[in-house]
Structure formats: structure tokens, C-alpha cells
């Protein structure tokens, strides 16, 4: 029982990550009809926003300390970040430690700008092109973005820790009357979960309750008619692309402490996010969220030893297995609409 509860918790957290990544992808799919293979790269760029901010905050001046030697026997150059010298030891290090949450403020404008630039500069010209061309161009773009990041940051993962206040875990088990240490959960993941819920909620509210969102939803349903009504749908699509990029970006920022960013992390998530979106059903935002949680929870269950001893290797394939079963029983995923990306 406690083990199951624990994995449900794990699954919810994993699911919120999946849902958040898939959300942006399905926005682009649904509104623009573009297969965006660069979406994983956007997620990666988000994570590197956190890295960049951390690097900016730790820009240092060097003071030679003749009493200590570096590895070559020369006097050691001690680096002190400017932030520390400006704000004092405690406050300065505090700011650096909070670089990941701060990076959200930094990432949102950056990612929106990147999204705008991508849509205006490249994607716009591919709306009427076959999906194959979209795949090739966005895949090429993803490689280029990755390689640029690799050129500046290297291939090694870069540690981007969460603020020290969030180290350690919260003991759910005690709340529910179990023994201590039975159901624990890291604080940062609770933050991630709450954050995802808020972002997902915001996106839904935006699409549901604003005029802008209404037009976009109408555009998703029938783009031609909306265009005929004299509404400038193109401009709105640009904004949607920026929004999708920002959602992917902040997902990346918040994920950075869980998964040290490296330049190819986007590719690792790309396939997964496609599977989530398609299982959820093309063009359906609630579907993507639902599928994210479903796959997250099932994946967590599959990692339990009790299950692995019956079905060895099940945790290796569970996501794909579930995807196959769902697509075979529900032709358009969980909540897909007819006719979207079916030809």
C-alpha cells in the first residue's frame, strides 16, 4: 500500500513534467499544424537559461592569494563573484543559490523572443509545406541550436542546484499515519509539481477565458473560416508560438536541478513528448495533460521491483507499450479530434 502510494506520488511528479513539455508541443501542433522537432531544443534552451543566469551571477574577479598554490605551483587565483562583493557574503551567495527560480524571470522574455524569431523567421514559411519538410527543417534547427549550446557550454552536464532551502524531502508518510521515511518526497519536486499545475492552469485559463484564446481555439478547429472572418490569425499564431516556447522554456528551467542540463537533453525528451502528445490525442490540450500524468504514473509503477520481477524489463518499454495499447483501442489517442494530422 505504502509502496503504491509512493509511486503514485512519483508518477504525479513525473507526469507533471511530461505534461508541461507536451503542452507546448501540442499547442504548436494544434494551432499551427507544424510538426516541431525543435521543441526538445526549446526545452533544452530553457534549462540553459538557468545555466546562463547562474554563470552571469557568478562572473568573478580574481585575487591572487600567494599563500595558496594552484595545481601548477603558481599562486592561486581566488575567484570572488561580483555579486558576493557587492551584496556581502551571505546575501551574494544567497542570490547565486536562488539562480534557478530567478532564471524563470529571465527565461520568459528570452524564450518568447526566441519563439517569435523562430516563427517569423522560419516556421511561418513552412505552414503550407508538407509535414516531411517541417520535420527536416525543425530537426536541422534542433541540431543547430544544440551545437551552438555545445560550443559555448561544452557537452558535460552542468550542475544547477536548487536553492538549499529545498534540499531534503517532505515526509508524507507521517501525515498519513505511516512510519517515518516511508513516503518521502523532495521539496524541490513538490515545487515543480505545484509550478507545473499553475502553468498548466494559466495556459488553460488563457485559452478558455480570453478573447484571444477563443480566437485561437477557433483557429485550431477551423483555420480557414476564422481567416475568412477577417481575423488576422497569423499574428495570433506568432504569439502562440512564443507562448509555447516560453512554456517549454520554463519547464526546462525548473527541471534543471532535477536533471543537470546538457546540450542534448532536448533530444532525450523529444521522443517522449511526441509520444505523450499523440497518446493524448492530436490537437487536444487536456489530452496531453492527461496522457502526461497517465504515462508518468504507469512508468513509476513499472519501476517497482515487485512488477519487474514478474515482467523483466517492463520499465524499459512501459511508455511505448501503453502508447501502442491506447492508440489501438482509441484511434485518436485519449482525447484527439478527428482529422487532425491523420493524413
Amino acid at each position, binding site marked *: 500500500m*505504502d509502496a503504491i502510494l509512493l509511486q503514485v506520488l512519483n508518477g504525479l511528479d513525473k507526469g507533471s513534467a511530461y505534461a508541461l513539455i507536451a503542452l507546448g508541443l501540442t499547442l504548436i501542433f494544434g494551432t499551427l499544424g507544424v510538426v516541431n522537432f525543435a521543441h526538445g531544443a526549446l526545452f533544452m534552451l530553457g534549462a540553459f537559461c538557468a545555466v546562463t543566469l547562474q554563470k552571469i551571477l557568478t562572473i568573478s574577479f580574481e585575487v591572487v592569494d600567494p599563500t595558496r598554490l594552484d595545481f601548477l605551483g603558481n599562486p592561486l587565483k581566488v575567484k570572488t563573484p561580483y555579486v558576493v562583493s557587492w551584496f556581502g557574503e551571505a546575501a551574494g551567495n544567497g542570490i547565486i543559490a536562488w539562480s534557478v527560480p530567478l532564471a524563470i524571470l529571465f527565461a520568459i522574455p528570452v524564450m518568447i523572443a526566441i519563439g517569435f524569431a523562430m516563427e517569423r523567421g522560419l516556421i511561418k514559411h513552412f505552414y503550407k509545406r508538407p509535414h516531411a519538410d517541417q520535420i527536416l527543417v525543425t530537426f536541422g534547427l534542433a541540431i543547430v541550436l544544440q551545437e551552438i549550446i555545445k560550443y559555448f557550454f*561544452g557537452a558535460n552536464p*552542468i*550542475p544547477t*542546484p536548487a536553492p538549499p532551502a529545498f*534540499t531534503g524531502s517532505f515526509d508524507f508518510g507521517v501525515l498519513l499515519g505511516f512510519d517515518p521515511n516511508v513516503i*518521502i518526497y*523532495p521539496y524541490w519536486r513538490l515545487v515543480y509539481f505545484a509550478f507545473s499545475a499553475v502553468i498548466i492552469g494559466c495556459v488553460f485559463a488563457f485559452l478558455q477565458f480570453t478573447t484571444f484564446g477563443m480566437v485561437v481555439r477557433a483557429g485550431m478547429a477551423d483555420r480557414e473560416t476564422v481567416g475568412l472572418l477577417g481575423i488576422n490569425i497569423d499574428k495570433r499564431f506568432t504569439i502562440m508560438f512564443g507562448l509555447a516556447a516560453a512554456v517549454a522554456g520554463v519547464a526546462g528551467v525548473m527541471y534543471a536541478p532535477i536533471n*543537470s542540463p546538457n546540450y542534448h537533453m532536448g533530444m532525450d525528451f523529444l521522443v517522449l513528448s511526441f509520444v505523450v502528445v499523440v497518446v493524448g490525442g492530436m490537437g487536444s490540450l487536456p489530452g496531453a495533460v492527461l496522457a502526461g500524468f497517465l504515462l508518468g504514473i504507469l512508468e513509476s509503477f513499472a519501476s517497482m521491483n515487485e512488477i519487474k520481477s514478474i515482467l523483466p*524489463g517492463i520499465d524499459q518499454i512501459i511508455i511505448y507499450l501503453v502508447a501502442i495499447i491506447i492508440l489501438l483501442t482509441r484511434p485518436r489517442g485519449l482525447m484527439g479530434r478527428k482529422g487532425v494530422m491523420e493524413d
Partner: protein
Amino acid sequence: MIKSHLTRRGVLKTGSVAGAGLAVPTIFTASSAAAYTNEPTGNTVTLGFNVPQTGPYADEGADELRAYELAVEHLNGEGDGGMLNTFTSKALTGNGILGKKVAFVTGDTQTKSDAARASAKSMIEKDGAIMITGGSSSGVAVAVQGLCQEAGVIFMAGLTHSNDTTGKDKKANGFRHFFNAFMSGAALAPVLVKNYGADRNAYHLTADYTWGWTQQESIQAATEALGWSTVNNVLTPLASTDFSSYIAPVLNSGADVLVLNHYGGNMVNSLTQAVQFGLKDKMVNGKQFEIVVPLYSELMAKGAGASIKGILGSTNWSWTLQDEGTKAFVKSFGTKYGFPPSNAAQTCYAQTLLYADAAERAGTFNPCGLGAALEGFEFDGLGNGPTLYRAADHQCFKDVLVMQGKQDPTSEYDALEIVEVTPRAQVEYSPEHPMFAGGELGSCNPGA
């Protein structure tokens, strides 16, 4: 000998083929002019450095490449000579190898056995490389070693830690300087017992592929022999990035030590996440909970950042050692590149020197003669103390370092400190040890 027909680019640089416009068909037979694959006939000899340049291990590959370039410099008599000055064998004089200037070609393994073999083949077929070296994973090392055996060139393994490389997949043309999973276990277990006590329950998370399995098997055997018990061993998919569902049940399992048999990105993520769970601060069974990472690399330690503090693991070598060889190497590497070398770089540098030295001593590049010169070779001065290249399995035997994440690093390259230098005798094993059984070297293949 098998008739290897892997071809040579041969001699053209020197213009020794005078018959311009004349087609000279040479079907290779046993009577062919060349005595062995890619016999260098000009005044240069080409080595092939096959390292990951793209993919997750690209930075490790880059460091290996730096070490190779440094080694080539030193072999050709440029730079300060590095470990050539401290190496106990004095056959190398800085005029190349056997009087031929050392040239090199580079390739990208992508950490995929297919790509690595393609790259190695192009070096052999197109560039006339006489030796292939490098690699950053055991899968690639074993695959390229097999290729070199068939092609008739020497393979000097780079970073490969699986028992199989010199165990069931050993090859007569392949040589490994790096240590292996068994040695990690043998070196680490006594230190673990000394630090954490003999009454411990270990929980293993193991990367679900060959290296992970051998690493887990080795460390489990070594710790159990000293009184630890193993609570559980859970296999994690290689593609995992989120280990939370594997880490969460650890605390409730009765275990008080978590062993992460992961490498590279897997290790960075699983360690970071385990620390995020607060495992290091927990008390279980009245004891402080501990985390162990059997195989460390400097780059991965860097990737894990502060999470690594206080965590025990093992490495092949460390730039913080104080012997003459290490100091000479760190000095020339540090002067050239501005930061200290990783243990992957050291093994690659040492391998290049060992190859060159063996060629000098054998008086030939022929893989058979050269291999014989390496077999049973005892040497010192390359940073690892007295070392033996064992003839039975082409594995180097030397001291193993037990390392710990440093509490107060002075720079980003200073993440690890030496806890103990485990003497060679303690990590030695018989070539027939069950963890290494099942393969055989076969006979050396000079190709051609």
C-alpha cells in the same frame, strides 16, 4: 595468419611510387610486399585517435584528444617531454617512433559501436593508421578491439572499465591500461568497511547494461566478502533521466548505503537526485545513510557539482598524486591547456607512450612483435607506480585510487581528493577468475 586484406594508403606521401600513370595491381596475398597491415614505409607513422567528439561523452573525448596530442608532441621531441622523462623505459628518445615522425588522425566514435567501427575502419583503410586508441565506453572499446584484431592493427584501449574488455572479450591485439570494475570493487570495499563499518546493508541501483552489471557484481562480491549484506539490486534503464521512482523506496528498504552503479549522465542525475531526496542527511538503523559511486570521473564529478561532497568512489589516477611521473604530466598538460588532466587523459597519454615504447623495444611496428614487447612488461614512472602489463589478458595491474568528493574545493577541477592508494597486490586476480572467464586472447594478427 589470416589474410587480412584491409588496405593501406601506403607510401604515396614520400613519392616512392615512381611509376606515374602505371597501374600496379596488387592483390594482397601472403606473399604481398607488406609484412603487416599498414606497414609504415615513409618517414612518418600514423596513429588513429578514435574518441567521442559528439554525444554525452564529447568533453571526455576532448580531454582524451588533448592528452594524445600532448603525447605526440613529446614523442616527436617537442614540448618538455612530460612523462618521457620519468618513464623507467628509456627506449624513447624524442625522435618519433623508430625514427619515424608521429602523425595522427582523429575520428568521432559518437559513443556508438557502429560509428566507432566506421571511424576506426576509415583510419585503417584510408589513412593508413597502424594503431587505434581511444574510446570512452566499454561497448565501444570491445567493438573496436574486435575490429582491430581482425584488421591486424594494435588497439590501445582508452577509458573502458568493464571486466569484459580484458575478460571474456579480450583480444590478442588489444591492450588496456585503465583499471576495471573488479579492481574498483576490490579497492573500494575495504575503505567502505573502514569508514562505514562492517555491518551495513547496501541497496544497489545499476545501469541496465553490460558495464553496469559487471560493476554491480564486482562491488557486491567485494563488500559481501567483508561482511556487508545486499538488500536489493534494482536495474535502471540506460535512458532514464529521472530516478525518483528508483530512489524513493530506498529509505524504507532497511538499507543504509546506496550504491550507484551508474556512469556519465546517469550517474550525474542519480546522484544529484539522491542528494535532493536528502538521503545523505538521514539516519537509518541508527547509522548515517551513505551513498557510494564505484567509478568516478573528474568530468562527471564536475557535472554533479556539490552533490559529490563526501562521496566515496574509485579512479584510475588523479592529478593530485605526488609522484614524479604525475607531476611531470600535470605540468606539461597544465601548461599547455590551462587546467589539470582527467584520469581518462592520463590513461590515453600513457597508452600512447607505452605503444611507442614497445615499438622501439621490439624494433618493429608489427603487431605481433610489438604485442610481445608489451606482454609482461613491467614499468614505472607513468603516474600509477610500478605497473605490469599482464601477458595472460593484456590488462595493466597497478595501484587503484579510492577518491572522495572534496568538502572545500579550491577550483572546479579540484572536486575529488585521494582517500587511499590501494596497493596493486590487493586488486590483483587470476586470469581464470569467474568474472573474467569465457574468452581467450587468440593469436596475434598482423594482417596483410
